[in-house]
Structure formats: C-alpha cells, structure tokens
C-alpha cells in the first residue's frame, strides 16, 4: 500500500488532496487533523518520518488561479532515515485566521523553523514555547516575505530610512 493511499484510508476527509509526481508525494491536510497526521507519520513503523527536513510557507495572494483560495500554505518536508522516503505535507490557512498548531513537541527543530515562518509570513503557531521573531529584529513591523510587503520599505535601526 502506498503512503498516500494509506494516509487517505486512515484519515479520510482530513486529507484534502493528494498528489504524486515522479515519486514526489504531496498531501494537503486539514488544519484540525494536522498534528494527528504528523504524529502518525513520525510514529508509524511503516512511515517512520523521523526528520523534519524543512518547514516553510507560501503566500498565494494574487497567484494566478488561486485568488479566491486560502492565502497561505504552510509546508512540511518529512524524511525517513530508516526507509529513505520523503513526504510533503501542506496546510492551507487564510489571512484572517493565520494560525497552525505547533509541531515543536514532535520535532524540536520545528522551534526555529516555526519562528522563521512567523517572522517572514506572520503565520502564528499555537502552542509554540517561544514565539519570537527569528531573523528580523524585535522593532521590525510587518512580515517581509508577504507578497504585499512594500518592496522599497526600509526599517533601519540606525541611519536614514532610504
């Protein structure tokens, strides 16, 4: 049984969408079921995704064909050392409701990755132990990788603004 089919059978409607392209597996998960799916991916012996390779986000505002859909997609890249297989998990969240449950309890590396996503995209992670910015300074206003962050806005700590 393939990984995608197994997840679909186990979680049913919580799996919004699956996609496979040349061995690259992608599942889109409903936010309510995210932690359960992630925990299953980590703990199930056949899956054994023990490494969270990357956690990032995509801003789809004004993206052709996705203007009406949820604005952000939070993306998890998982890897299994035992089976050497990979899985990409996505969660869609809207701008007014931009929060996702934190995965720090599952993979400690998620701590800094989630702080980076909060810093750059402004997606909050519920239950994060230390929800500060990671890259920008505390005085910085806004989230610079959002597509509507003005490209020429400067917020220097010292010196002139331009």
């Amino acid at each position, binding site marked *: 049984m393939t990984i995608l089919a197994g997840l679909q059978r186990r979680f049913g409607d919580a799996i919004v969408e699956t996609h496979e392209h040349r061995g690259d597996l992608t599942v889109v998960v409903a936010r309510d079921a995210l932690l359960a799916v992630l925990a299953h991916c980590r703990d199930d012996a056949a899956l054994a995704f023990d490494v969270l390779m990357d956690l990032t986000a995509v801003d789809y505002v004004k993206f052709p064909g996705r203007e009406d859909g949820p604005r952000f997609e939070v993306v998890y890249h998982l890897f299994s050392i035992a089976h050497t297989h990979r899985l990409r998990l996505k969660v869609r969240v809207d701008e007014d409701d931009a929060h996702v449950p934190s995965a720090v309890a599952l993979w400690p590396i998620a701590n800094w990755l989630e702080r980076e996503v909060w810093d750059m995209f402004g997606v909050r992670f519920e239950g994060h132990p230390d929800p500060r910015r990671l890259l920008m300074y505390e005085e910085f206003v806004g989230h610079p990788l959002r597509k509507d962050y003005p490209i020429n806005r*400067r917020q220097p700590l*010292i010196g002139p603004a*331009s």
Partner: protein
Amino acid sequence: MGVGSFFTSKLDEAIGWARKYSIFQYPFVTACCGMEYMATACSHYDVDRFGAGLPRFSPRQADVLFVVGTISHKMAPVLKRIYDQMTEPKWVVAFGVCTCTGGFYDNYATVQGIDTIIPVDVYIPGCPPRPESVIDGLMKLQDKIAVQAQRY
C-alpha cells in the same frame, strides 16, 4: 608662512609617512567578500608589503576598519559600536559593492551603503573585488593617510 608652520608641515609629512606603512586593520567580515579579503591578506598578494600585514582583532588596537561584506539593518548598531570603539586617528574602508551601496540587495534587510551609518574613506567596488582592486584601494588609503593634516 613662518618658521613654525614649516616645522609643522615637515612633522606632518613624517607622521603621515610613518602611519601609512603601519596600518593595523580590523577586518569586520560578514559575508563572501571575506574570502577575497583572506586571499589578499595571504602570501600570494602579501599586504605586508604595504605595512598592513597584521590585522588586530580588537577595534581598540586598530586604526583602519575594513568592512568586508553585506551589512544588515540588524548588524548596523554593532558596526557603529565597533567604529566608536576605535581610537583616533581612524579610517574606514568599504570593501565590496554591498558595503558601498547595498549592491543588489535592494531589500528590506540590507543597509544601502555603510556611509549611511559611519564615514567612509575608501570605497572598493566589486562583487567581490579582486585582490588587485583591494591593493589599489589600500594604496589610495595610504596616499590619503600620507597627506592628512595632523591635530596636535
């Protein structure tokens, strides 16, 4: 012009000559330009020929600040503080196009030229500058040091 100013100008020249061959740099290395800085400082290009062969890793012992690499807004207060810690006389070299103008990092994170924060004496453009450009910049700095009037 009296005898007094004749002596002063000769003393200025002597001090300038001595200073230009005893450059103690502080390399403030933040990015890829650092590799080119190291290449210049090593034996192949040998900045010791110009009396600049001994970098000091404390700003209090240095008199030329080499800002080597991109300076982000988060780093800017640190750079300013390092500059303030250096004793007079002091000079600043902007090494590479990022320190000169921000380079192609025209974005939310990068200082658009370190001369918005601290005064700069010599700009060395290039991404990164070749060791020849660095040595050219160093010699221009030497010329500047040699003719600089002293405060007594």
